[in-house]
């Protein structure tokens, strides 16, 4: 790759083309129904002749694999974990949204769409959001039926709670472990198909390349993490449901092994990458207490239902929180956003916290956090109620910090969390490589520039259980009678050879520094340059630093051992190498987009009140990057007909 810091952005802007996502030309709430009616079908007797590869066994991957297998297709499912249940969907805590609108709080499908589109600051595809809303109801029915024990009222009906950015109660949950319960249910459904012989499950396999032949995705190359064997698997279609890449920041709420490799490898083989710089910083993570810590701990946003966020009015106030009198506390979210208060959306809450911390009002030993205080809620509702709602979160907080949140306020801080960016896909979730589909956080279309809490479990489920099972067969229908690509095909051999070369290159650098050390440095570069807020100068500096870091990586990397057995250093090195390339594209994307939108906040573009200032004339579009040297930036124009465009206002 050329040195992008020296590339003029203006030159990049001359070459891209407008992308068509294939949304039928009807009202957005009708688009999915019309599109479904256009989908071709595969008759039940023919389905077993088709093979589909699904990479990732989280909510999107396990759902897609199980649903396709239930229909009769043969699925090869891959996970780098030892068991499908461990995918990172497991860690989502607070809940899953659904526009079931049973209560009389005036919720509706339309209101769900308004909240999600507005929450995403008008950078999501409206028709996709309608699909998300329309399918949300039966997601709850399905997961309930396959074993997720949703919280229930004493009358036996499903319980709900509220999340940031909404004024209704549409979040379904199972204590603070919703992701875990949904993930376990989905993994069970996947294993049911393993038992039925329709899914072949490949655990401890990492996808390291995509096989593209005859202009379409026809397989993947994997490395068996236990014995190091590198081999290709071929199929009629490939689904990537490999999650997000917030872990590029090193300190993030993501699991330590979450990575970008599968989507990045697909990008290098031709899949466009949408909005790589759109990263959400979660406002209620625990502050890092040492630079060596592998990750930060997430505390569910649901805590903001009952917790009040505040900082001391005076910078540098060193008193214990309970010694600070009420009139010397600034409940800054309630003050700045009275209508939504502590439930302001994540991007706004994170930025507001960052403003307070940067002004010296941060608390805790590192002065890098703000308080989340439950004393009012405990006084109002009693300790038992708070314990039932958040007991496991309070216990986790006590484990990590050694402090008791029933007695003293929690300390929270923004941390890299969810990426709205990912592989660009059309309305059918098909990427720009025919036959390559994407689901869940690996994709990009629902959340715009900021995701609402509890919409990520939903989008993974809608993709996996209800969208891909319709759209993948539409692609397969055109391939009736086609055998799977021969494993001796030149494209297969070339992909396998390139993976081998890369693994050998990582082992051969022979330097002195562990991959984890480069990862930590990369995280610091990104947090400074491409974090909660960005500037042109900061992004240009970050581009230079990333480029220099990559050069050092390939000169000074140390990977012990060999590639023929379990070698976690080698796995980590490959992922960090891809993070370094991705980081560059993230900075370039953020530099290119001369506006603020949602979580992408450029200091140069803000309103008089310090909120994100969009430039709808120039940037009402999704940026989708094509790999190249330099990369080419295409754009998908966005249109909003059901939700009138407006400045987001949570005051």
């Amino acid at each position, binding site marked *: 790759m050329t040195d992008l810091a020296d590339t003029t952005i203006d030159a990049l802007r001359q070459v891209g083309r407008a992308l068509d996502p294939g949304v039928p030309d009807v009202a957005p709430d009708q688009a999915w129904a019309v599109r479904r009616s256009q989908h071709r079908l595969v008759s039940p007797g023919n389905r077993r002749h088709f093979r589909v590869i699904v990479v990732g066994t989280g909510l999107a991957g396990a759902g897609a694999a199980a*649903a396709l297998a239930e229909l009769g297709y043969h699925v090869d499912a891959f996970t780098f974990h030892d*068991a499908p249940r461990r995918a990172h969907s497991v860690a989502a805590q607070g809940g899953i949204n659904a526009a079931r609108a049973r209560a009389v709080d005036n919720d509706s499908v339309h209101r769900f769409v308004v909240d999600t589109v507005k929450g995403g600051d008008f950078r999501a595809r409206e028709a996709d959001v309608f699909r998300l809303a329309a399918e949300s109801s039966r997601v*709850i029915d399905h997961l309930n*039926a396959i074993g997720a*024990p949703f919280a229930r009222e004493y009358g036996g009906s499903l319980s709900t709670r509220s999340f940031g950015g909404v004024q209704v109660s549409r979040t379904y949950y199972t204590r603070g472990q919703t992701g875990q*319960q949904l993930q376990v249910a989905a993994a069970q*459904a996947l294993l049911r198909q393993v038992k039925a012989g329709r899914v072949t499950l490949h655990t401890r396999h990492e996808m390291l390349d995509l096989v593209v032949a005859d202009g379409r995705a026809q397989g993947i190359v994997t490395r068996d993490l236990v014995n190091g064997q590198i081999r290709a698997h071929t199929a009629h279609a490939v689904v990537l449901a490999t999650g997000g890449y917030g872990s590029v920041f090193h300190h993030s709420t993501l699991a330590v092994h979450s990575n970008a490799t599968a989507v990045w490898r697909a990008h290098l083989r031709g899949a466009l990458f949408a909005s790589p710089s759109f990263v959400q910083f979660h406002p209620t993570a625990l502050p890092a207490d040492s630079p060596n810590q592998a990750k930060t701990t997430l505390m569910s946003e649901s805590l903001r239902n009952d917790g009040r966020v505040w900082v001391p009015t005076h910078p540098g106030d060193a008193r214990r929180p309970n010694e600070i009198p009420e009139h010397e506390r600034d409940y800054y979210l309630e003050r700045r956003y009275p209508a939504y208060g502590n439930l302001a959306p994540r991007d706004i809450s994170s930025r507001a916290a960052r403003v307070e911390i940067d002004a010296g009002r941060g608390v805790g030993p590192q002065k890098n956090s703000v308080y989340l205080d439950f004393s009012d809620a405990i006084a109002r509702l009693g300790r038992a109620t708070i314990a039932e709602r958040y007991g496991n979160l309070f216990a986790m907080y006590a484990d990590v910090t050694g402090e008791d949140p029933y007695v003293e306020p929690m300390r929270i801080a923004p941390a890299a969390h969810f990426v709205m960016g990912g592989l660009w896909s059309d309305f059918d979730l098909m990427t720009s490589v025919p036959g390559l589909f994407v689901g869940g956080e690996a994709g990009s279309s629902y959340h715009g520039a900021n995701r609402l809490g509890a919409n990520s479990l939903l989008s993974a489920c809608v993709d996996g259980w209800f969208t891909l099972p319709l759209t993948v067969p539409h692609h397969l229908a055109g391939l009736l009678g086609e055998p799977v690509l021969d494993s001796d095909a030149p494209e297969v051999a070339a992909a396998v050879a390139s993976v081998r070369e890369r693994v050998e290159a990582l082992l051969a650098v022979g330097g002195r520094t562990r991959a984890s050390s480069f990862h930590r440095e990369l995280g610091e570069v990104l947090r400074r340059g491409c974090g909660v807020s960005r500037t042109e100068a900061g992004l240009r500096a970050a581009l230079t630093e990333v480029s220099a870091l990559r050069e050092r990586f390939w000169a000074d990397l140390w990977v*012990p051992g060999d590639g023929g057995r379990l070698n976690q250093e080698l796995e980590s090195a490959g992922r960090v190498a891809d993070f370094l390339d991705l980081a560059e594209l993230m900075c370039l994307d953020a530099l290119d987009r001369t506006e603020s939108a949602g979580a992408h906040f450029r200091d140069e573009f803000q309103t008089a009140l310090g909120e994100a200032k969009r430039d709808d004339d120039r940037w009402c579009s999704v940026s989708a990057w094509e790999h190249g040297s330099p990369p080419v930036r295409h754009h998908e124009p966005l249109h909003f007909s059901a939700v009138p465009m407006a400045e987001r206002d949570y005051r």
Partner: protein
Amino acid sequence: MKLTVEVWRQESPADAGRWERHEVDDAASHLSLLDLLDLLNDQIAAAGGEPVAYESDCREGACGACGVTVNGVPHGPVPRTPSCRQHLRSFDGATRLRIEPLRSAAFPVVRDLVIDRSALDALVTAGGHVAINSGTASDAEALPIGHDDAETALDFAACIGCGACVAACPNGAAHLFAGAKLAHLAMLPQPALERGRRARAIVDELEQRFGPCSTYGECAEVCPAGISLAAVAAVHREGIRAWWRGRDD
């Protein structure tokens, strides 16, 4: 704080394995057990050695990937807490830690502290699921579930699949894991339609792959999800019920 760490090293399943001793000089009390392993690995790497292989992922106690034995106790000295949430400050001033894999005949060592727990998934594959295809479920509100039943089902469903219960059991039984799954699904009306056939399938698989239960109760002592011994009773109850009724429900 200065710590002596003895850690299990094993190249492969076939290798006999050995203890390796290290001194860690700056083990701060706020470190988690896994932070300590990271620190140890930095130290080993700095000296040119191969870091210790171990598993972890979410580090929040949900994924169940982590799990090592510390001074003979699965997950570590803090009861009912996963390895990722064990912090040195709670180790009662211990100055010597022996860290080894979760050990059981059903869990072969892959490398160092990494084990193969696929036998647990074999139990789920055998019958730990619900025969409802995508899109065919009835309305979740159509079958009311009492608040307490849902909460009790969730108490059992909280299992994170780490395998510590098996490692803690002198017999290498997996009754806590299997019983948690059976009890969780038996409590809920839709999954309960297959209660009998599920119990037969899981109990058969359990007997083939794991040891028998003698109700020592060590499993519940270490369970990071707080699964109670009632899960063990559920294995027997569900098994006998299925045999007695001879039906699929």
